[in-house]
Protein backbone atom coordinates (compact mmCIF):
# COMPACT_ATOMS: atom_id res chain seq x y z
CA UNK A 1 0.00 0.00 0.00
CA UNK A 2 1.41 3.44 -0.87
CA UNK A 3 0.24 4.78 2.53
CA UNK A 4 2.61 2.32 4.22
CA UNK A 5 5.35 1.52 1.71
CA UNK A 6 8.83 0.46 2.78
CA UNK A 7 9.21 3.44 5.10
CA UNK A 8 6.00 2.50 6.90
CA UNK A 9 7.07 -1.11 7.22
CA UNK A 10 10.35 0.11 8.69
CA UNK A 11 8.38 2.16 11.24
CA UNK A 12 6.38 -0.93 12.17
CA UNK A 13 9.59 -2.94 12.53
CA UNK A 14 11.09 -0.29 14.80
CA UNK A 15 7.93 0.09 16.91
CA UNK A 16 7.56 -1.24 20.45
CA UNK A 17 3.96 -1.89 21.52
CA UNK A 18 2.83 -3.23 24.90
CA UNK A 19 -0.39 -5.27 25.17
CA UNK A 20 -1.83 -5.23 28.67
CA UNK A 21 -3.66 -8.52 28.97
CA UNK A 22 -3.69 -11.55 26.69
CA UNK A 23 -7.43 -12.12 26.99
CA UNK A 24 -10.43 -11.29 24.83
CA UNK A 25 -9.11 -7.95 23.57
CA UNK A 26 -5.43 -8.76 23.85
CA UNK A 27 -5.72 -11.86 21.68
CA UNK A 28 -6.73 -10.16 18.41
CA UNK A 29 -4.59 -7.13 19.21
CA UNK A 30 -1.42 -9.19 19.61
CA UNK A 31 -2.15 -11.50 16.67
CA UNK A 32 -2.71 -8.62 14.24
CA UNK A 33 0.19 -6.55 15.51
CA UNK A 34 2.52 -9.54 15.17
CA UNK A 35 1.22 -10.22 11.67
CA UNK A 36 1.68 -6.53 10.79
CA UNK A 37 5.33 -6.77 11.75
CA UNK A 38 5.46 -4.68 14.92
CA UNK A 39 9.10 -5.26 15.78
CA UNK A 40 8.82 -5.58 19.55
CA UNK A 41 5.62 -6.77 21.13
CA UNK A 42 5.27 -6.87 24.91
CA UNK A 43 2.59 -8.97 26.62
CA UNK A 44 1.81 -8.53 30.30
CA UNK A 45 -0.60 -10.92 32.02
CA UNK A 46 -0.40 -12.90 35.27
CA UNK A 47 -3.24 -15.31 34.52
CA UNK A 48 -3.33 -18.86 33.23
CA UNK A 49 -5.54 -20.11 30.41
CA UNK A 50 -8.90 -21.48 31.53
CA UNK A 51 -11.32 -23.46 29.37
CA UNK A 52 -13.97 -20.75 29.86
CA UNK A 53 -11.59 -18.25 28.16
CA UNK A 54 -11.55 -20.06 24.83
CA UNK A 55 -14.90 -18.70 23.61
CA UNK A 56 -13.25 -15.30 23.02
CA UNK A 57 -9.51 -15.46 23.80
CA UNK A 58 -8.57 -16.83 20.41
CA UNK A 59 -4.82 -16.71 20.85
CA UNK A 60 -5.14 -19.70 23.20
CA UNK A 61 -6.30 -23.23 22.45
CA UNK A 62 -7.58 -26.21 24.42
CA UNK A 63 -4.05 -27.59 24.68
CA UNK A 64 -3.01 -24.36 26.45
CA UNK A 65 -5.44 -24.73 29.37
CA UNK A 66 -3.57 -24.19 32.69
CA UNK A 67 -0.54 -22.66 30.87
CA UNK A 68 0.47 -19.07 31.63
CA UNK A 69 -1.27 -16.83 29.11
CA UNK A 70 1.92 -14.97 28.21
CA UNK A 71 3.64 -18.27 27.39
CA UNK A 72 0.74 -19.48 25.26
CA UNK A 73 0.43 -16.12 23.49
CA UNK A 74 4.15 -15.75 22.80
CA UNK A 75 4.24 -19.18 21.16
CA UNK A 76 1.43 -18.26 18.75
CA UNK A 77 2.92 -14.85 17.96
CA UNK A 78 6.33 -16.32 17.16
CA UNK A 79 4.56 -18.88 15.00
CA UNK A 80 2.90 -16.12 12.99
CA UNK A 81 5.97 -13.95 12.73
CA UNK A 82 9.36 -15.36 13.77
CA UNK A 83 11.06 -12.07 12.87
CA UNK A 84 9.59 -10.07 15.74
CA UNK A 85 10.71 -9.87 19.36
CA UNK A 86 8.09 -10.93 21.89
CA UNK A 87 8.72 -9.81 25.46
CA UNK A 88 6.59 -11.47 28.12
CA UNK A 89 5.80 -10.20 31.60
CA UNK A 90 4.18 -12.99 33.61
CA UNK A 91 3.11 -10.63 36.35
CA UNK A 92 0.25 -8.43 37.43
CA UNK A 93 0.71 -4.87 36.23
CA UNK A 94 0.85 -2.77 39.40
CA UNK A 95 1.89 0.62 40.69
CA UNK A 96 5.25 -0.93 41.55
CA UNK A 97 6.14 -2.12 38.04
CA UNK A 98 3.93 -0.22 35.55
CA UNK A 99 6.21 2.75 34.91
CA UNK A 100 9.26 0.57 34.45
CA UNK A 101 7.46 -1.79 32.04
CA UNK A 102 5.61 0.88 30.08
CA UNK A 103 8.57 3.23 29.73
CA UNK A 104 10.24 0.63 27.51
CA UNK A 105 7.46 0.84 24.88
CA UNK A 106 6.12 3.47 22.45
CA UNK A 107 2.41 2.66 22.66
CA UNK A 108 0.24 0.83 25.21
CA UNK A 109 -2.83 -1.15 24.16
CA UNK A 110 -5.13 -1.92 27.07
CA UNK A 111 -6.93 -5.25 27.02
CA UNK A 112 -7.39 -5.51 30.77
CA UNK A 113 -10.65 -6.55 32.40
CA UNK A 114 -10.98 -4.40 35.50
CA UNK A 115 -11.23 -0.74 36.44
CA UNK A 116 -8.16 -0.69 38.69
CA UNK A 117 -5.87 -1.74 35.84
CA UNK A 118 -7.51 0.70 33.42
CA UNK A 119 -6.85 3.68 35.72
CA UNK A 120 -3.33 2.40 36.38
CA UNK A 121 -2.60 2.11 32.64
CA UNK A 122 -4.09 5.55 31.97
CA UNK A 123 -2.10 7.29 34.66
CA UNK A 124 1.11 5.50 33.72
CA UNK A 125 0.61 6.48 30.07
CA UNK A 126 -0.04 10.13 30.93
CA UNK A 127 2.96 10.26 33.26
CA UNK A 128 5.27 8.66 30.68
CA UNK A 129 3.76 10.40 27.64
CA UNK A 130 2.74 7.18 25.87
CA UNK A 131 -0.47 6.95 23.80
CA UNK A 132 -3.08 4.71 25.45
CA UNK A 133 -5.20 2.67 23.03
CA UNK A 134 -8.38 1.86 24.93
CA UNK A 135 -11.28 -0.53 24.45
CA UNK A 136 -13.67 -2.28 26.77
CA UNK A 137 -16.60 -4.63 26.27
CA UNK A 138 -19.70 -5.82 28.08
CA UNK A 139 -22.32 -8.20 26.72
CA UNK A 140 -23.07 -6.88 23.19
CA UNK A 141 -21.52 -3.41 23.61
CA UNK A 142 -18.05 -1.96 23.37
CA UNK A 143 -16.21 1.33 23.66
CA UNK A 144 -12.93 2.39 22.04
CA UNK A 145 -10.76 5.49 22.00
CA UNK A 146 -7.20 6.70 22.05
CA UNK A 147 -6.17 8.55 25.19
CA UNK A 148 -3.15 10.40 26.47
CA UNK A 149 -2.02 11.86 23.16
CA UNK A 150 -0.62 15.39 23.11
CA UNK A 151 -3.49 17.76 23.92
CA UNK A 152 -6.06 14.99 23.85
CA UNK A 153 -8.21 13.67 26.67
CA UNK A 154 -7.26 10.80 28.95
CA UNK A 155 -9.42 8.06 30.44
CA UNK A 156 -9.93 10.12 33.61
CA UNK A 157 -11.23 13.02 31.54
CA UNK A 158 -13.99 10.68 30.39
CA UNK A 159 -14.60 8.84 33.67
CA UNK A 160 -12.96 10.69 36.59
CA UNK A 161 -13.97 7.95 39.02
CA UNK A 162 -14.80 4.26 38.71
CA UNK A 163 -18.19 2.84 39.62
CA UNK A 164 -18.47 1.34 43.10
CA UNK A 165 -17.54 -2.34 43.18
CA UNK A 166 -20.40 -4.53 42.04
CA UNK A 167 -22.41 -1.75 40.36
CA UNK A 168 -21.21 -2.59 36.83
CA UNK A 169 -20.90 -6.37 36.38
CA UNK A 170 -17.72 -7.77 34.87
CA UNK A 171 -17.76 -9.86 31.70
CA UNK A 172 -17.19 -12.96 33.84
CA UNK A 173 -20.37 -12.19 35.75
CA UNK A 174 -22.54 -10.49 33.11
CA UNK A 175 -21.21 -12.27 30.03
CA UNK A 176 -19.91 -11.04 26.71
CA UNK A 177 -20.57 -12.01 23.13
CA UNK A 178 -17.46 -13.98 22.18
CA UNK A 179 -16.77 -12.14 18.93
CA UNK A 180 -17.22 -8.67 20.47
CA UNK A 181 -13.71 -8.38 21.97
CA UNK A 182 -12.50 -9.57 18.56
CA UNK A 183 -14.26 -6.63 16.93
CA UNK A 184 -12.96 -4.10 19.45
CA UNK A 185 -9.49 -5.65 19.58
CA UNK A 186 -9.13 -5.28 15.83
CA UNK A 187 -10.08 -1.62 16.20
CA UNK A 188 -7.38 -1.24 18.85
CA UNK A 189 -4.79 -2.92 16.61
CA UNK A 190 -5.81 -0.57 13.78
CA UNK A 191 -5.35 2.47 15.99
CA UNK A 192 -1.96 1.25 17.23
CA UNK A 193 -0.73 0.74 13.66
CA UNK A 194 -1.99 4.21 12.64
CA UNK A 195 -0.16 5.73 15.61
CA UNK A 196 3.05 4.00 14.54
CA UNK A 197 2.67 5.08 10.93
CA UNK A 198 1.49 8.58 11.81
CA UNK A 199 -1.27 8.07 9.27
CA UNK A 200 -4.96 8.88 9.25
CA UNK A 201 -7.14 10.18 12.07
CA UNK A 202 -6.97 8.23 15.27
CA UNK A 203 -9.78 7.98 17.82
CA UNK A 204 -8.06 10.60 20.02
CA UNK A 205 -10.81 13.00 21.11
CA UNK A 206 -13.53 10.59 20.02
CA UNK A 207 -15.32 7.75 21.83
CA UNK A 208 -16.51 5.00 19.52
CA UNK A 209 -19.54 3.07 20.78
CA UNK A 210 -20.20 -0.31 19.21
CA UNK A 211 -23.54 -2.08 19.56
CA UNK A 212 -23.13 -5.54 18.09
CA UNK A 213 -26.81 -6.44 18.45
CA UNK A 214 -27.94 -3.65 16.13
CA UNK A 215 -24.49 -3.47 14.49
CA UNK A 216 -24.43 0.29 14.95
CA UNK A 217 -21.30 2.34 15.46
CA UNK A 218 -21.71 5.76 17.13
CA UNK A 219 -19.07 8.41 17.49
CA UNK A 220 -19.05 10.87 20.37
CA UNK A 221 -16.79 13.88 20.82
CA UNK A 222 -14.48 13.99 23.83
CA UNK A 223 -12.42 16.84 25.17
CA UNK A 224 -9.56 17.06 27.59
CA UNK A 225 -10.82 18.18 30.99
CA UNK A 226 -8.95 21.17 32.38
CA UNK A 227 -9.88 19.82 35.84
CA UNK A 228 -8.45 16.35 35.18
CA UNK A 229 -6.28 15.34 38.14
CA UNK A 230 -3.74 13.67 35.83
CA UNK A 231 -3.65 15.59 32.54
CA UNK A 232 -5.51 18.80 33.48
CA UNK A 233 -4.17 22.31 33.86
CA UNK A 234 -3.28 21.77 37.49
CA UNK A 235 -2.67 18.05 37.92
CA UNK A 236 -2.66 16.61 41.41
CA UNK A 237 -1.61 13.06 40.52
CA UNK A 238 2.14 13.10 39.90
CA UNK A 239 2.89 9.46 40.63
CA UNK A 240 1.04 6.17 40.53
CA UNK A 241 -1.37 5.58 43.41
CA UNK A 242 -3.02 2.53 45.00
CA UNK A 243 -5.56 1.71 42.29
CA UNK A 244 -7.17 -1.14 44.23
CA UNK A 245 -8.01 1.35 46.93
CA UNK A 246 -9.03 4.01 44.37
CA UNK A 247 -11.51 1.54 42.87
CA UNK A 248 -12.77 0.44 46.27
CA UNK A 249 -11.68 -3.15 45.76
CA UNK A 250 -10.08 -3.49 49.14
CA UNK A 251 -13.09 -1.94 50.78
CA UNK A 252 -15.33 -4.47 49.09
CA UNK A 253 -13.13 -7.35 50.14
CA UNK A 254 -13.01 -6.05 53.70
CA UNK A 255 -16.78 -5.65 53.75
CA UNK A 256 -17.25 -9.12 52.36
CA UNK A 257 -14.96 -10.51 54.99
CA UNK A 258 -17.06 -9.05 57.75
CA UNK A 259 -20.56 -8.89 56.39
CA UNK A 260 -20.83 -11.80 53.99
CA UNK A 261 -20.15 -15.19 55.53
CA UNK A 262 -18.84 -17.59 52.93
CA UNK A 263 -18.83 -21.34 52.46
CA UNK A 264 -16.60 -23.11 49.94
CA UNK A 265 -17.96 -25.72 47.55
CA UNK A 266 -16.05 -28.60 49.14
CA UNK A 267 -17.32 -27.72 52.62
CA UNK A 268 -20.87 -27.33 51.29
CA UNK A 269 -20.67 -30.77 49.68
CA UNK A 270 -19.43 -32.27 52.95
CA UNK A 271 -22.30 -30.76 54.91
CA UNK A 272 -24.91 -31.86 52.37
CA UNK A 273 -23.49 -35.39 52.29
CA UNK A 274 -23.61 -35.39 56.09
CA UNK A 275 -27.32 -34.74 56.01
CA UNK A 276 -27.27 -31.06 57.00
CA UNK A 277 -30.58 -29.46 56.08
CA UNK A 278 -29.26 -26.50 54.13
CA UNK A 279 -31.58 -24.37 52.02
CA UNK A 280 -29.91 -23.63 48.68
CA UNK A 281 -30.90 -20.36 47.01
CA UNK A 282 -30.09 -19.79 43.33
CA UNK A 283 -30.13 -16.03 42.57
CA UNK A 284 -29.12 -16.20 38.89
CA UNK A 285 -31.29 -15.47 35.84
CA UNK A 286 -33.58 -18.09 34.24
CA UNK A 287 -31.35 -18.61 31.18
CA UNK A 288 -28.43 -19.43 33.47
CA UNK A 289 -30.45 -21.97 35.43
CA UNK A 290 -31.25 -23.68 32.13
CA UNK A 291 -27.53 -24.24 31.58
CA UNK A 292 -26.79 -25.81 34.95
CA UNK A 293 -28.03 -25.82 38.54
CA UNK A 294 -27.42 -27.67 41.78
CA UNK A 295 -31.01 -27.54 42.92
CA UNK A 296 -32.46 -25.27 45.56
CA UNK A 297 -35.01 -22.50 45.49
CA UNK A 298 -34.79 -20.12 42.53
CA UNK A 299 -35.21 -16.35 42.95
CA UNK A 300 -33.26 -14.03 40.60
CA UNK A 301 -31.39 -11.36 42.55
CA UNK A 302 -33.55 -8.56 41.13
CA UNK A 303 -36.72 -10.27 42.38
CA UNK A 304 -35.40 -10.98 45.86
CA UNK A 305 -36.81 -7.87 47.62
CA UNK A 306 -40.36 -8.63 46.55
CA UNK A 307 -40.08 -12.39 47.02
CA UNK A 308 -38.17 -12.47 50.29
CA UNK A 309 -41.32 -13.76 52.03
CA UNK A 310 -40.74 -17.10 50.26
CA UNK A 311 -37.69 -17.67 52.49
CA UNK A 312 -37.66 -18.90 56.07
CA UNK A 313 -35.23 -16.91 58.20
CA UNK A 314 -35.00 -19.84 60.63
CA UNK A 315 -33.46 -22.07 57.95
CA UNK A 316 -29.75 -22.08 57.18
CA UNK A 317 -29.49 -20.61 53.68
CA UNK A 318 -26.63 -20.89 51.19
CA UNK A 319 -26.99 -18.50 48.24
CA UNK A 320 -25.24 -19.17 44.96
CA UNK A 321 -24.84 -17.59 41.53
CA UNK A 322 -22.33 -18.04 38.70
CA UNK A 323 -19.17 -16.82 40.42
CA UNK A 324 -20.24 -15.60 43.86
CA UNK A 325 -20.63 -11.87 43.22
CA UNK A 326 -24.40 -11.59 42.89
CA UNK A 327 -25.04 -14.12 45.64
CA UNK A 328 -22.82 -12.03 47.94
CA UNK A 329 -25.16 -9.12 47.29
CA UNK A 330 -28.12 -11.41 47.98
CA UNK A 331 -26.56 -12.40 51.30
CA UNK A 332 -25.94 -8.75 52.15
CA UNK A 333 -29.58 -7.97 51.37
CA UNK A 334 -30.91 -10.91 53.38
CA UNK A 335 -28.74 -10.04 56.37
CA UNK A 336 -29.99 -6.45 56.22
CA UNK A 337 -33.51 -7.92 56.19
CA UNK A 338 -32.85 -9.79 59.41
CA UNK A 339 -31.68 -13.18 58.12
CA UNK A 340 -28.81 -14.37 60.31
CA UNK A 341 -28.14 -17.92 59.07
CA UNK A 342 -27.20 -17.12 55.49
CA UNK A 343 -23.95 -17.76 53.66
CA UNK A 344 -22.53 -17.21 50.19
CA UNK A 345 -21.15 -20.06 48.06
CA UNK A 346 -17.58 -18.92 47.33
CA UNK A 347 -16.85 -18.91 43.59
CA UNK A 348 -20.44 -19.80 42.74
CA UNK A 349 -21.62 -22.75 40.72
CA UNK A 350 -18.56 -22.54 38.47
CA UNK A 351 -16.35 -23.28 41.47
CA UNK A 352 -18.69 -26.12 42.49
CA UNK A 353 -18.33 -27.57 38.97
CA UNK A 354 -14.57 -27.24 39.15
CA UNK A 355 -14.00 -28.60 42.63
CA UNK A 356 -16.92 -30.88 43.43
CA UNK A 357 -18.69 -32.14 40.33
CA UNK A 358 -16.66 -31.94 37.12
CA UNK A 359 -19.55 -33.44 35.13
CA UNK A 360 -21.37 -30.11 35.37
CA UNK A 361 -20.80 -27.52 32.62
CA UNK A 362 -19.07 -24.23 33.42
CA UNK A 363 -20.02 -21.08 31.55
Amino acid at each position, binding site marked *: MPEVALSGQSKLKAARVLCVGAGG*LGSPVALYLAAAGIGTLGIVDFDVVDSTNLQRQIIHSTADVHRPKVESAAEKLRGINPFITVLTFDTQLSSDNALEIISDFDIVVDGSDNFATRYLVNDACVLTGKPYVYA*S*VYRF*EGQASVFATAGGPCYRC*LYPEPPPPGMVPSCAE*GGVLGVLPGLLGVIQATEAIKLVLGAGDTLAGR*LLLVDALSMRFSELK*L*SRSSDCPVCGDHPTVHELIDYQEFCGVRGEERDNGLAVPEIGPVELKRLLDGGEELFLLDVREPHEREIVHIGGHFIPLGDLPERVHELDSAREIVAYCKSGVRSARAVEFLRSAGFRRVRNLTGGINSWAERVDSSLPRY
Partner: protein
Amino acid sequence: MIRIRVQLPAHLRTLARVTGEISVEIEGAVTQRSVLDAVEVNYPTLRGTIRDQMTHRRRAFIRFFACGEDLSLESPDRSLPEPVATGREPFLVVGAIAGG
Protein backbone atom coordinates in the same frame (compact mmCIF):
# COMPACT_ATOMS: atom_id res chain seq x y z
CA MET B 1 -46.39 16.28 26.10
CA ILE B 2 -43.29 15.30 24.15
CA ARG B 3 -41.90 11.77 24.03
CA ILE B 4 -38.12 11.79 24.50
CA ARG B 5 -35.95 8.84 23.49
CA VAL B 6 -33.29 7.68 25.95
CA GLN B 7 -30.57 5.08 25.45
CA LEU B 8 -29.18 3.41 28.56
CA PRO B 9 -26.03 1.31 28.98
CA ALA B 10 -26.53 -2.47 29.11
CA HIS B 11 -26.21 -2.89 32.87
CA LEU B 12 -28.83 -0.19 33.51
CA ARG B 13 -31.19 -1.77 30.96
CA THR B 14 -30.88 -4.98 32.92
CA LEU B 15 -31.64 -3.12 36.13
CA ALA B 16 -34.64 -1.37 34.56
CA ARG B 17 -35.74 -4.68 33.00
CA VAL B 18 -35.91 -3.24 29.49
CA THR B 19 -34.27 -4.62 26.38
CA GLY B 20 -33.87 -1.60 24.13
CA GLU B 21 -34.21 2.15 23.95
CA ILE B 22 -36.72 3.65 26.37
CA SER B 23 -38.83 6.77 26.03
CA VAL B 24 -40.35 9.13 28.57
CA GLU B 25 -43.01 11.80 28.27
CA ILE B 26 -41.98 15.31 29.22
CA GLU B 27 -44.24 18.24 29.85
CA GLY B 28 -42.54 21.62 29.60
CA ALA B 29 -38.83 22.25 29.10
CA VAL B 30 -36.78 19.32 27.82
CA THR B 31 -33.61 19.40 29.88
CA GLN B 32 -31.22 16.84 31.35
CA ARG B 33 -32.99 17.29 34.67
CA SER B 34 -36.55 16.88 33.35
CA VAL B 35 -35.60 13.85 31.25
CA LEU B 36 -33.73 12.12 34.08
CA ASP B 37 -36.49 12.96 36.58
CA ALA B 38 -38.96 11.25 34.24
CA VAL B 39 -36.65 8.27 33.74
CA GLU B 40 -36.36 7.80 37.51
CA VAL B 41 -40.15 8.09 37.99
CA ASN B 42 -40.81 5.48 35.28
CA TYR B 43 -37.91 3.22 36.30
CA PRO B 44 -37.42 3.62 40.06
CA THR B 45 -34.68 0.96 40.15
CA LEU B 46 -32.45 3.43 38.28
CA ARG B 47 -32.54 5.95 41.14
CA GLY B 48 -29.01 6.53 42.34
CA THR B 49 -27.39 4.78 39.40
CA ILE B 50 -27.20 7.71 36.96
CA ARG B 51 -27.34 10.58 39.44
CA ASP B 52 -26.49 10.72 43.10
CA GLN B 53 -29.76 10.24 44.99
CA MET B 54 -29.11 13.10 47.39
CA THR B 55 -27.45 15.75 45.23
CA HIS B 56 -28.94 14.69 41.87
CA ARG B 57 -25.52 15.30 40.33
CA ARG B 58 -24.30 13.07 37.52
CA ARG B 59 -22.19 10.21 38.77
CA ALA B 60 -18.53 10.42 37.75
CA PHE B 61 -18.61 7.13 35.81
CA ILE B 62 -21.61 8.21 33.70
CA ARG B 63 -21.69 10.69 30.80
CA PHE B 64 -24.46 12.28 28.80
CA PHE B 65 -24.33 12.71 25.03
CA ALA B 66 -26.72 13.92 22.35
CA CYS B 67 -26.19 14.39 18.62
CA GLY B 68 -22.55 13.27 19.05
CA GLU B 69 -21.78 16.03 21.54
CA ASP B 70 -20.77 15.59 25.16
CA LEU B 71 -23.33 17.37 27.36
CA SER B 72 -22.01 16.01 30.64
CA LEU B 73 -20.60 19.29 31.88
CA GLU B 74 -23.51 21.45 30.82
CA SER B 75 -26.10 22.77 33.24
CA PRO B 76 -28.81 20.18 33.94
CA ASP B 77 -31.36 22.90 33.33
CA ARG B 78 -30.12 23.84 29.88
CA SER B 79 -32.44 22.83 27.04
CA LEU B 80 -31.40 19.68 25.19
CA PRO B 81 -30.64 19.98 21.45
CA GLU B 82 -33.68 20.35 19.21
CA PRO B 83 -33.38 16.87 17.60
CA VAL B 84 -33.56 15.34 21.09
CA ALA B 85 -36.35 17.66 22.25
CA THR B 86 -38.44 16.66 19.23
CA GLY B 87 -37.79 12.96 19.62
CA ARG B 88 -35.74 12.55 16.44
CA GLU B 89 -32.49 11.75 18.23
CA PRO B 90 -31.97 9.92 21.52
CA PHE B 91 -30.43 11.25 24.71
CA LEU B 92 -27.50 8.94 25.44
CA VAL B 93 -26.50 7.80 28.92
CA VAL B 94 -23.06 6.21 28.57
CA GLY B 95 -21.41 4.35 31.43
CA ALA B 96 -17.94 3.08 32.19
CA ILE B 97 -17.35 -0.60 31.47
CA ALA B 98 -14.15 -2.50 32.05
CA GLY B 99 -14.53 -5.89 30.39
CA GLY B 100 -11.77 -7.15 28.19
